[in-house]
């Protein structure tokens, strides 16, 4: 199953023909692209079992279309962590331009902090 594809993202005829001919066997052996895609997702959270690992490796060897999928998930995880984690995607010292607390909420929070300070002062025997 080659990975030649035209600019519209369509899969080659050879890929489709292969699946038409082999799909019962692939499905029975849980070696279809869908099965591989599920395993690619699962291995992001846990170690695959021996049989799952074998099916994963076999499919990866024979299917050029699916071969890059695990790498996409790893890259997606890195992107998500790098870009979203602490909201620092705008860089240190900058804030996300679209999200922010309104003044009323900020004042409410500041009052809560001030109240907390006052409580501490009382608790210190003041």
């Amino acid at each position, binding site marked *: 199953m080659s990975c030649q594809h035209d600019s519209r993202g369509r899969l080659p005829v050879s890929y489709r023909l292969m699946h038409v001919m082999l799909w019962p066997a692939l499905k029975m052996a849980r070696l279809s692209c869908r099965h591989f895609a599920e395993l690619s997702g699962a291995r992001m959270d846990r170690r695959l079992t021996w049989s799952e690992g074998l099916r994963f490796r076999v499919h990866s060897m024979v299917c050029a279309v699916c071969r890059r*999928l695990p790498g*996409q998930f790893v890259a997606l995880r890195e992107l998500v962590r790098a870009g979203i984690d602490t*909201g620092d995607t705008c860089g240190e010292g900058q804030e996300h331009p679209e999200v922010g607390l309104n003044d009323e909420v900020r004042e409410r*929070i500041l009052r809560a902090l001030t109240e907390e300070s006052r409580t501490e002062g009382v608790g210190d025997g003041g």
Partner: protein
Amino acid sequence: MNEITTEQLMSAADALFAYALSRVSDHHEAEDLVQETLVTAWEKRGSFDGRSQLRTWLIGILKFKVLDHFRARKRTPTVQGNGAGVDGEWGDDPMDKLFDRRGAWRADPNYGMEFLVESPADEAMRQDVFEWVRRCMGRLPERLRLLFSMREIDEVPVAEAAVAAGVTPGSAAVLLTRARHQIRDCLQSHQISP
């Protein structure tokens, strides 16, 4: 011990709010979480040793507040088995859309996905990619987004993330795969290219 001022805490409020919104979609809940976080940070300011950045320390507190928030909802696991669309709030299973009945891809999963594995040299493009990732995550159903965020960003173990999301660990595993495919497909549908 580093002295923290209320001004310093308030300067991080917007960033905390953005983070909270990525976990809970309700604005009021996110505001409450930010307030709880900052009050707790103020109470515990003596424990901040300055080895990490203040924002990082605050985000750490917020993560626990988010976990507590979902635990307090006392959700009982509602999704058993493969978690496939039993509860409509998880959204449709993307696998049926991505694959035909023979288990073959309906479209090339690699088309237009070079940006995922190649680092854009241009900072503007990089921010573009981050923005699309954020948007695609935002399209996930709330609990699925929470599950995905806790796992992918907060690196919470699956079992713990499952508790927070109110599902069994087995269902959480299936749902996480679903979320990854949904986001991947969402990004591909925008055909972002470097």
